[in-house]
């Protein structure tokens, strides 16, 4: 440890042996100043990580003093070592208790605060009486400290806190006359309520609401955050009250503290769904935009949090910042993590109105130094092409210009995104293939190689020298990475099927090498399957390998709707930064998605069903077959393995997002055969999740029903269903089961607006009453005369099912091709 070169006392400079022994002597010195200097020295040693716990008794002796600085030092020592010497802590208790009676409120509060921090069970009994007294102290400083101490105590021993009625006292303190005390009481209760199973710890009623709103205007910025937090959790009784609260929260958007602003944004984003006053909703949305822009003038770290949240807000309300794209243009001196997040927001805000401006910016970014950022900028150009049809030509030209620069990482990234563009717009840009192939020899990254090989294979019949090109790659087949090998096998077979006779040799060679010389089972298996297909039934091989691939879609919305709603309820929190559900972070949600009375009524009328957190599991299941709802978004930022993929082998494939498509494997004929990601993102964690088609499907049931409603989320009503065509009639094939304990009646179904304009042609015919345990197979004919509205993903159809016990919502997916 280097000594501080100047300044009078050098507490960090002693390194003598037997130091603790000397310190021990000095701590017992008869001179007060000497003792104080020694305590400082002890704390200094503690700071640099030396073990001074053996001095416990000697330090504690100095606790009883009028010198506040010395007292604080001893307290600090206690906080650090109480847990290592629990039996000695008792020595300090007397002084603590005495201090809680001191005339100076600073000392009273200090004693309470410190006692709560010792985290030693033994001291709890001694803490109880002083704490109760402190909660009723005349001085608000002591009360606010004591309030938090109750939360500390609860954390340590919930029973004692409950048994002594401390929580009731804190609940009463929500009516304290001091705003700081109210704020800390809110914080303490929120924390206790989160930790406890009881739901009645923190109940906001109308009179408490009034007090909270009043305190909001008066307490410190940090207190305001606590109160806004509790407002986000509150369920207003009616839309009128929701509007009133929103109006009271609006002024907080003008606060200098960015966290107050962001928490206020959270409250408003939640409440806007609860308000039925269009005028006010519009006003709120209008007022959200300027403060969000201003957050970009804060410290870089805060900007980062803000940008991650703006990303979410835009997925929910795409119109909020539609006029503001310029403020997200990258500054030369932005830190890289801010640049990358701005890039994401730019893509979100990119529309056919501003796409020219965006493209010229993105081109500029491609000249930057930071390779990672340049790659993402190149990729962004491709994403714009996939997102905006009318701009695709310009994007492709831009990418071609970039390829001409011959800067290696730019070229490779460009080829990777061009593959996505080819998938989105088949047969539109094959003219650029020669330009891509010119760079054949410079490619050294597996993803880029695989992408180019995929393009060659898919367009084998239009490329004259496809055979030559593939031969070039095949030379080093064994040394290539598995992604490239898989692509090579597929491309060679595609070439054979598209130009019969031309590639016999190549295919023979590659299949032999793959089956005999490769250790990787994936590669070997794919080669075997292709080989068998080709030798037994070339027609079937054609049908499987050259099957039409599902189109990819813009990946602008990166989280599923369910997760999005949950994250909106957590704006400003870590979950909102990671874009992960709070339950994955090891902590409870800042705000739970709650189902208040207002919400329920709104759902009935609204055209956008909200989703209860408890139905998450069911939603995941409902997404089966759609295969794109990467609900947990576990691997954000990377390609999602196993997320995406088509439907089962007999079901027709459904759209996959561009992100999922970046995983090359999903693009292959192989997956069309093998069943793809049966469970989409929900199966991401399971190694077998991607392959249900092999094991489960029995030929007798060509289309499997998937769970639409889980009984635990729908009062015992279970529905499994799928969409089928029977004798030319499209309909929903349902299995309705009553897993509850009472008969069900009054069944009805409603379709939300969807891409295909699907709506029920007749009423839902379920035997009524449906007795407990009874199951019914129902076919619901559908027509397509409803209001069509583009959904994202296109296959998504939201339905509501009602019975005598309630209304339930499900996300269902129409298999692509069913309606063609």
């Amino acid at each position, binding site marked *: 440890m280097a000594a501080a070169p100047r300044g009078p006392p050098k507490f960090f400079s002693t390194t003598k042996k037997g130091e603790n022994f000397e310190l021990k002597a000095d701590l017992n010195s008869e001179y007060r100043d000497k003792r104080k200097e020694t305590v400082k020295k002890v704390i200094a040693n503690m700071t640099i990580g030396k073990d001074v716990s053996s001095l416990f008794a000697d330090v504690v002796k100095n606790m009883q003093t009028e010198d506040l600085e010395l007292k604080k030092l001893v307290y600090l020592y206690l906080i650090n070592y109480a847990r290592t010497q629990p039996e000695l802590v008792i020595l300090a208790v007397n002084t603590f208790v005495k201090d809680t009676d001191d005339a100076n409120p*600073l000392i009273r509060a200090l004693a309470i605060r410190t006692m709560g921090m010792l985290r030693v069970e033994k001291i709890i009994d001694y803490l109880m009486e002083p704490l109760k007294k402190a909660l009723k102290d005349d001085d608000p400083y002591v009360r606010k400290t004591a309030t938090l101490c109750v939360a*500390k105590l609860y954390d340590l021993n919930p029973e004692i806190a409950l048994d002594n009625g401390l929580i009731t006292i804190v609940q009463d303190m929500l009516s304290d006359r001091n705003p700081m005390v109210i704020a800390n009481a809110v914080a303490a209760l929120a924390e206790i309520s989160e930790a406890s199973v009881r739901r009645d710890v923190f109940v906001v009623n109308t009179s408490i609401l009034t007090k909270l709103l009043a305190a909001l205007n008066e307490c410190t910025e*940090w207190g305001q955050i*606590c109160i806004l937090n509790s407002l986000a959790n509150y369920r207003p009784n009616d839309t009128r009250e929701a509007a009133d609260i929103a109006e009271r929260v609006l002024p907080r958007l003008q606060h200098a*503290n960015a966290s107050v602003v962001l928490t206020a944004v959270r409250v408003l984003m939640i409440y806007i769904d609860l308000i039925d006053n269009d005028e006010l909703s519009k006003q709120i949305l209008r007022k959200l935009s300027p403060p969000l822009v201003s957050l970009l003038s804060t410290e870089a770290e805060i900007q980062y949090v803000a940008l991650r949240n703006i990303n979410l807000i835009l997925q929910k309300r795409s119109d909020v910042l539609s006029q503001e794209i310029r403020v997200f243009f990258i500054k030369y001196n932005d830190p890289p*993590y801010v640049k990358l997040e701005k890039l994401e927001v730019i893509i979100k805000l990119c529309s056919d109105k501003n796409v020219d401006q965006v493209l010229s910016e993105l081109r500029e970014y491609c000249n930057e130094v930071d390779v990672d950022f340049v790659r993402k900028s190149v990729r962004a150009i491709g994403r714009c092409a996939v997102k905006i049809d009318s701009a695709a030509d310009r994007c492709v030209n831009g990418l071609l210009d970039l390829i001409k620069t011959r800067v290696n990482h730019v070229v490779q990234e460009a080829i990777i995104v061009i593959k996505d563009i080819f998938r989105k717009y088949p047969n539109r840009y094959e003219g650029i293939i020669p330009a891509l192939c010119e760079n054949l020899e410079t490619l050294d990254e597996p993803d880029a190689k695989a992408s180019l090989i995929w393009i060659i294979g898919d367009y084998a019949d239009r490329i004259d020298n496809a055979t030559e090109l593939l031969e070039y790659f095949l030379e080093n087949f064994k040394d290539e990475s598995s992604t490239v090998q898989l692509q090579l096998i597929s491309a060679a077979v595609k070439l054979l099927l598209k130009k019969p006779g031309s590639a016999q040799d190549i295919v023979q060679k590659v299949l032999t090498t793959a089956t005999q010389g490769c250790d990787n089972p994936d590669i070997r298996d794919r080669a075997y399957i292709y080989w068998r297909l080709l030798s037994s039934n070339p027609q079937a091989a054609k049908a499987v390998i050259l099957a039409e691939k599902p189109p990819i879609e813009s990946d602008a919305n990166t989280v599923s709707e369910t997760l999005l709603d949950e994250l909106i309820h957590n704006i400003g929190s870590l979950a909102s930064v990671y874009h992960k559900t709070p339950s994955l972070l090891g902590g409870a949600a800042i705000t739970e998605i709650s189902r208040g009375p207002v919400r329920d009524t709104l759902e009935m009328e609204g055209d956008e069903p909200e989703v209860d957190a408890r139905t998450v599991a069911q939603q995941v299941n409902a997404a089966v077959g759609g295969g794109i709802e990467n609900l947990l978004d576990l691997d954000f930022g990377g390609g999602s393995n196993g997320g995406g993929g088509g439907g089962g082998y007999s079901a027709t494939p459904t759209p996959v997002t561009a992100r999922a498509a970046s995983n090359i494997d999903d693009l292959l004929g192989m997956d069309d055969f093998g069943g793809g990601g049966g469970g989409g993102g929900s199966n991401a964690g399971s190694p077998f999740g991607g392959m249900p088609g092999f094991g489960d499907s029995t030929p007798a049931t060509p289309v499997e029903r998937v769970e639409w409603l889980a009984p635990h989320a729908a009062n015992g009503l279970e529905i499994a269903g799928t969409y089928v065509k029977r004798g030319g009639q499209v309909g929903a094939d349902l299995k309705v089961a009553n897993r509850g304990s009472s008969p069900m009646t009054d069944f009805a179904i409603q379709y939300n607006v969807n891409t295909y304009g699907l709506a029920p042609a007749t009423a839902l015919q379920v035997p009524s009453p449906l007795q407990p345990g009874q199951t019914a197979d129902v076919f619901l004919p559908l027509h397509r005369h409803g209001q069509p509205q583009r959904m994202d993903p296109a296959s998504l159809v939201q339905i509501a099912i009602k019975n005598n016990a309630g209304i339930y919502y499900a996300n269902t997916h129409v298999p692509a091709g069913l309606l063609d």
Partner: protein
Amino acid sequence: MVASALFILDIKGKVLISRNYRGDIPMSAVEKFMPLILEAEEEEQTPTPIMSSEDGIHFLYVKHNNLYLLVMTRKNSNAATILLFLHKLIEVFKEYFKELEEESIRDNFVIIYELLDEMMDFGYPQTTESKILQEYITQESYKLETQPRLPMAVTNAVSWRAEGIKYRKNEVFLDVVESVNLLVNANGNVLRSEILGAVKMKCYLSGMPDVRLGLNDKVLFESTGRTSGKGKAVEMEDMKFHQCVRLARFETDRTISFIPPDGEFELMSYRLNTQVKPLIWCEAVIESHSNSRVEYMIKAKAQFKRRSTANNVEIIIPVPEDADTPKFKCTVGSVTYAPEKNAAVWKIKQFPGGKDYMMRAHFGLPSVRSDDPNKRPPISVKYEIPYFTVSGIQVRYLKVVDKSGYQAFPWVRYITQNGDYFLRLPDPVKTSKLGTI
């Protein structure tokens, strides 16, 4: 909210000082932090300000000088609050010790512990106003007879101002400072232009004065139906206020009223998106003579009224890293080569409105060069224009009312300066060695 523990680390990740607030994460978990930073750097990514370890501990940090200020948590805490608190901590430390660096932490560990204890309790931020903290947490050792007392302000609704302040002469100084953020692309098109304004105050007022500030706010004028008279009114896109300003009052009638903290503070900030003519405009022509030399011709123009003058103008022109033998020529000011910034810096002490000046720079280039044509930072410009606001904002009045009824004197200054002010360089014009034959 909720921070479990707070650390200050040196650049190598060694703990200088720490405070455990909740005891739910072992303090040794901090050892997982530096590997996360290094891992990100190894993968050529810059570490983000929020990272998590595999066992679910989240690290939120701010880097300052050669220090990391770091918070650990296991819960879904409010990330914005924690990061903001860390910045607040830096601000408070700086007011206490001037500089926040390794040495000042070692020299002041006692007071840092005290501050950490007072500013956060059980992971929740408490009092963070440095003026108030300084009243009861001071660097002087306490004498027995003068035990510090808690200032009322700690728990008052007015938590930012102590009672009983007295001045012989009651004065208020207002500085209206506007920074211009500008981004111009290589073709000379303005991509982005915004004005960030701030009203900074120095208050030397006795008692508990109630202050009202009047600006030529367009929204206010329109709502009260008055015409702006001779001056124009300004439409502010977004306004942010110090916590002393009564926000609910502002929301209802746009009155800016407050009880100010004592001394210096930022009362409000605002933002305008209105496009203004860039105040200092630069045009650049770069001629590169195939790998032997490069020439820059810069024309700078002051595009504001003749009666104003920009002071201490610095135009920073980036040049290739391997440039050598600089030669400069300019009509006004002086040019120096700053190799550490890879830039030529053209300084002009006074740049009156309406004028334009020229500068030429010439650099030699080595004949063998690393082929890195991409690296092209923009020109940046620094300047200050006193007695001028680019937005046209004006302080119409500042009323101070105190029980004792004293008269207070307001002083107002205006200044406009550069913010992030960047003009991208055009592509070099390539001239071959042979010229035109």
